[in-house]
């Protein structure tokens, strides 16, 4: 395995230096964001593209981690919409925050797709949900909702059909506890709301037509008498990992153009998250990437803890809590990578068998999660300042009741057996059976290549980025939890094809096992120490006003939470930078020129989960 030592600085000195150079170079076009609890610079929209180019080429912040919009309705005199860009230096360190403001009516900003192609989907999302028009964007269509949907739902003055109140808990239900079914109050008995004056007569559906816009529909006969055909793959397709859809233009069997179509699982995570209190969102994060609920919990906890650290009274998580968190997160990584490899093999035509092997190990890890958190998949385990429960003395799994036998293990014994024996063997077995398999090498090597430059430009993250030769891992670049104390290498591969993306997952599992082996003695030493830093049961602390971008290295890539708090009980803006969603930006680049059968393999190697893609 190849690894690289990465020198990391976590101080904010490079950021201050960058801001100083920006000020020197652009003068009045930029100003420091001086709102309380905010960082970064606000850029004049007219200079945005220039500033972005300067930041990328001269300051070394080459990687656009996240781009999202915030609606400041009623929060400032000007009621503006704000676009927030987090740009990272791939040598490590915290991200530089760039902001651009635009009035709410006729919201327009220059597109940054020409600087960072990775902004493509994120800008489309901002247009779809916030209604910011991006000038110069090559394909500014709705991405999560359908073309023809009324309004931009994440704007603060847009109310959903079942709207009751700005914030939870709703007065109708708490504390008296009356329950009404929302659909009974709606004249249609459904979750629908139509604009005033809407009539069915003469209405024409635009949604499907818009998807095929730009694709040469029908048949074009070229000189060589080959035909271009447009094929819609999904949303119900066994190899799209859920309800993902691709509109593919084929020349014979070769892909000419591929456009991902998503939103089939868009369940309004962010809008609901802004109605919830901070703690309410914890169980919702479980359902983002539903293989990795523990890691999602950690990402959200890290983001809120960053906000909490802005305030005065705040105790960071205890050492034991951090150790338990790392244990959970690394087990999740192994679980995810095993299953991801299983799904990749499913896509390659091996059908379910490899996945079944992965699920055997997954069940063992889930038994542990269930015993600790009470739920197999949706753990809802982390809290701001620690975790919800300590590790139990013994694991008593109910899942095994199906064999009429209650399992009863000593927790540490179970973990030792799992980490020192069972999982290494599973990784070894996967390696033995698959790595040199002729079918796999034939179908994976050289397929779906993403070059190093493209991977950075398209904001690819996680295994996709590292398989293209960029040793970038948030655990090292902007360390969180107790990762600085732990010994592990950042795995990296250099070819950027499907095979390397498979291999890097094996490498990462080996590294995760290395971390887990270091965690076990820490757990033994800290036994009995507090696992939560606040008062017991008080999970919903007062969050000070400000913004925070908390990010963690999820199995699928950089999971970021961008939170804006106005000092109230619930987040003003709650945005999820989801690695699956942004990794898909590069899909069409990777697929071009390959055969249609390779598309599913390439998609499988990116490893997406639709709950996170669509949120």
């Amino acid at each position: 395995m190849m690894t690289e030592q990465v020198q990391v600085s976590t101080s904010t000195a490079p950021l201050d230096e960058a801001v100083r150079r920006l000020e020197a170079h652009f003068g009045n076009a930029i100003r420091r964001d001086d709102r309380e609890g905010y960082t970064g610079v606000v850029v004049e929209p007219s200079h945005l593209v220039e500033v972005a180019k300067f930041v990328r080429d001269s300051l070394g912040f080459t990687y656009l981690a996240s781009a999202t919009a915030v609606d400041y309705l009623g929060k400032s005199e000007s009621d503006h919409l704000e676009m927030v860009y987090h740009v990272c230096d791939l040598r490590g360190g915290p991200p530089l925050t760039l902001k651009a403001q635009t009035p709410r009516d006729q919201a327009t900003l220059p597109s940054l797709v020409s600087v960072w192609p990775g902004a493509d989907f994120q800008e489309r999302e901002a247009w779809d949900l916030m209604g910011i028009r991006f000038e110069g964007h090559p394909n500014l269509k709705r991405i999560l909702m359908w073309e023809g949907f009324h309004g931009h739902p994440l704007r603060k003055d847009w109310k959903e059909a079942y709207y009751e109140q700005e914030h939870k808990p709703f007065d109708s239900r708490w504390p008296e506890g009356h329950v009404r079914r929302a659909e009974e109050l709606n004249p249609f008995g459904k979750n629908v709301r139509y604009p005033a004056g809407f009539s069915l007569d003469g209405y024409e559906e635009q949604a499907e037509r818009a998807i095929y816009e730009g694709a040469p529909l029908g048949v074009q006969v070229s000189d060589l008498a080959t035909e271009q055909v447009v094929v819609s793959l999904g949303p119900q397709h066994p190899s799209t990992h859920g309800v993902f859809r691709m509109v593919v233009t084929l020349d014979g069997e070769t892909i000419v153009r591929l456009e991902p179509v998503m939103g089939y699982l868009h369940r309004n995570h962010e809008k609901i998250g802004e109605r919830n209190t901070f703690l309410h969102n914890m169980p919702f994060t479980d359902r983002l990437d539903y293989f990795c609920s523990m890691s999602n919990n950690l990402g959200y906890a890290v983001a809120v803890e960053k906000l909490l650290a802005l305030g005065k009274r705040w105790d960071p998580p205890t050492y034991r809590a951090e150790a338990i968190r790392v244990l959970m997160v690394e087990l999740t990584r192994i679980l995810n990578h095993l299953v991801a490899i299983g799904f990749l093999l499913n896509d390659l035509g091996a059908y379910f068998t490899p996945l079944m092997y992965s699920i055997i190990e997954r069940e063992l890890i889930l038994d542990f999660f269930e015993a600790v958190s009470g739920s197999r998949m949706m753990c809802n385990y982390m809290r701001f300042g620690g975790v919800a429960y300590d590790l139990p003395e013994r694991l008593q799994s109910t899942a095994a009741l199906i064999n009429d036998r209650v399992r009863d293990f000593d927790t540490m014994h179970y973990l030792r057996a799992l980490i020192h024996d069972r999982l290494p063997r599973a990784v070894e077995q996967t390696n033995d059976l698959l790595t040199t398999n002729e079918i796999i090498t034939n179908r994976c090597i050289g397929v779906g290549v993403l070059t190093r430059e493209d991977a950075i430009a398209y904001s690819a993250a996680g295994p996709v980025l590292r398989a293209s030769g960029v040793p970038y891992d948030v655990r090292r670049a902007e360390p969180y939890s107790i990762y600085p104390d732990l010994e592990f290498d950042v795995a990296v591969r250099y070819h950027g094809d499907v095979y390397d993306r498979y291999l890097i997952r094996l490498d990462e599992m080996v590294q995760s096992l290395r971390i887990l082996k270091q965690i076990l003695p820490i757990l033994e030493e800290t036994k009995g120490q507090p696992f939560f830093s606040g008062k017991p049961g008080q999970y919903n602390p007062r969050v000070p006003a400000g913004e925070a971008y908390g990010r963690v290295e999820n199995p699928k890539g950089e999971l970021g939470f961008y939170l804006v708090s106005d000092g109230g009980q619930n987040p003003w803006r709650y945005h999820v930078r989801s690695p699956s969603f942004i990794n898909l930006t590069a899909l069409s680049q990777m697929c071009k020129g390959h055969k249609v059968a390779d598309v599913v393999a390439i998609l499988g190697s990116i490893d997406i989960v639709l709950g996170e893609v669509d949120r």
Partner: protein
Amino acid sequence: MTQANENFLSELRHPDVPVPEGMQSSVAVTTFGRLIDSIYNWGRRNSIWPMAFGLACCAIEMIATASSRFDQARFGMEVLRASPRQADLMIVSGTVTKKMVVPIVRLYNQMAEPKYVLAMGACAIGGGPFKEGYNVVSGIDKYIPVDVYVPGCPPTPQALLYGLIMMQKKIDSQSLSNRDSTPWYGRGPSEEVPVPILGPDIIDPRQAHLFRRLAAEAQTGPGADGREDASAQARR
């Protein structure tokens, strides 16, 4: 004679026809209809082919149910079909969004009778934790008929297995002599569910009359416009 055999015979036996004591374990006298029903249902209940169709989190537990520890194959249900034309059972496993309900209804229409629907998890039953979301359908039964509901978020594989056993019970209760329980043997094709339209919001074609009525009301009486802001009523 095994216990299973005896149970089977005692279920089959016609209550009015007595069978001598010594022959109870091997003989059952029954009507022709009940005999045919039992064979027909026995075959169907043990070879339900679900559609390989996952929506969200619940789909992962569905896969876990099919895997070795829980082993759906014990019930003859391991053959997941990717095509709706070959499937008997649609397991709606996850949040149904407005965008997705269009293909789901289309897939349901494409399934051959007899077909069954199992709503797995809180979202498919009634919207679940995401119910208030602007793109979420409050339960798949708003659009297509559902046979079995399995609650949970997500339901454990055991719960799903229990739901599937309930599905088998339902199949057992269907009789060829009673057209109401096996309507697919009636004349002509079975009725299709109209496919929803993606308008400014999702439009159920079955509610077209409601649009006209509300439009008429809006013209005659001011303030009767229920379409503009249904939530205004909720606040009142």
